[in-house]
């Protein structure tokens, strides 16, 4: 199904990279709601959110040429850029209680997506997650699905803040390890 979808649908980002005006509009139609929804998770102020969405789309257009459908779907790639920028915005604003201002964070190079140790397939991700202990799944659900912050999760679960942080990190590491083990030759990502 995935391969059929990939071959039957013209990818948008490569055409954006080629400067196709029509693709620019399609990019907005396809991903505008997604980018807006991600940003709204992180920013409550409407004006700030709108400005950030504009910045994100400029970045998406500028980085469209770096998109590689063999590594991730367009949706994930756009989501990655939106999420990274939203987190960066909060970091710069110093608003997130457990994050501090930018300086040191800025010294960490952005990872090269081409060198990702796993290729993404959302179905595989879901099935891997299903094998996680209930507590980890709950933490993932609260963090990713519900969009709660670490302190909010700590309050809801009664776990110490440090434990929430550690378990989420280890959960992500375990997920990566599982996907690496499952690695399928010539795997194509799902959208």
């Amino acid at each position, binding site marked *: 199904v995935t391969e059929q979808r990939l071959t039957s649908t013209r990818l948008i980002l490569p055409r954006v990279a080629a400067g196709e005006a029509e693709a620019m*509009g399609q990019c907005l139609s396809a991903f505008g709601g997604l980018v807006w929804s991600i940003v709204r998770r992180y920013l409550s102020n409407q004006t700030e959110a709108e400005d950030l969405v504009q910045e994100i789309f400029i970045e998406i257009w500028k980085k469209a040429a770096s998109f590689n459908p063999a590594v991730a779907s367009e949706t994930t790639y756009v989501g990655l850029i939106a999420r990274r920028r939203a987190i960066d915005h909060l970091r710069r604003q110093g608003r997130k209680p457990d994050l501090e201002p930018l300086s040191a964070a800025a010294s960490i190079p952005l*990872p090269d997506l081409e060198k990702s140790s796993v290729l993404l397939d959302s179905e595989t991700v879901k099935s891997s997650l299903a094998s996680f202990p209930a507590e980890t799944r709950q933490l993932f659900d609260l963090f990713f699905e519900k969009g709660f912050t670490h302190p909010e999760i700590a309050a809801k679960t009664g776990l110490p803040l440090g434990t929430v942080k550690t378990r989420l990190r280890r959960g992500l590491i375990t997920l990566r390890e599982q996907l690496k083990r499952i690695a399928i030759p010539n795997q194509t990502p799902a959208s």
Partner: protein
Amino acid sequence: MIEDDSINRFNELCAGHALGDLSHEEERELAVLTKQLRIEPDAAFELLAASLEVESLKNAIEPMPAGLEVRLRQCAADFAGGMPSNVFVPEIPTWRKIVGNPLVGWAAAAAVAVFALLGSPQEVPISPAQAESKLRSEAGDLIERNFEGLGEFKSAGGKVVWSDRLQQGFMTLTGIPVNDPGKSQYQLWIVDPKRDEAPVDGGVFDIPTDGSPVVIPISAKLVLTQPQAFVITLEQPGGVVKSKQEKVVALAKG
């Protein structure tokens, strides 16, 4: 064993980075470990986090506000035609020294007007010179500054143009020595204090011909709000994340 511990810690910090939960100290620790272990953070962490977040939003996508969409469509129309891409997020808190140095005056060197208007380019890809002309004709908010060569690069000169609205800009450079890309490369830094203390990396480039004007597209990693200065340095091949500013080639400010 020690190395295993370091790698485990490195992975934990990479995961924290992807989750956006690193403390200031942990960010520093990750930067140090990255250097010590000579490995880059695995992009898989960020991809997984993004994938999970996107998946969770699948049934909860909200439409953009109508006004924002209109603005973005206008912005998209402006952008159609070719956009530069980019690389690093630098950390160089000491750039103000350069910008604020009164010795680095800016009685600008004779400007090099090489902006040949080549007509309206309709085809892609277009050359940097054509793209620069296009930008000049379309940007209503263009700022233009002259480069002045510094130190051993006194003969360097040229101009830089930048549009905040289009987030696009070009340098037209002269008098900069040809570099051997295998040994060193030029790197542009953009000082935008309104946005951030650290300058934004404007991309790495080469000077292939000696003396003749070269048009270089600016590849700003981050969105600029009000650039105050553009600084060219000579760095190791591929550029650097943090410049030691050992060889500052030219400065354009104002």
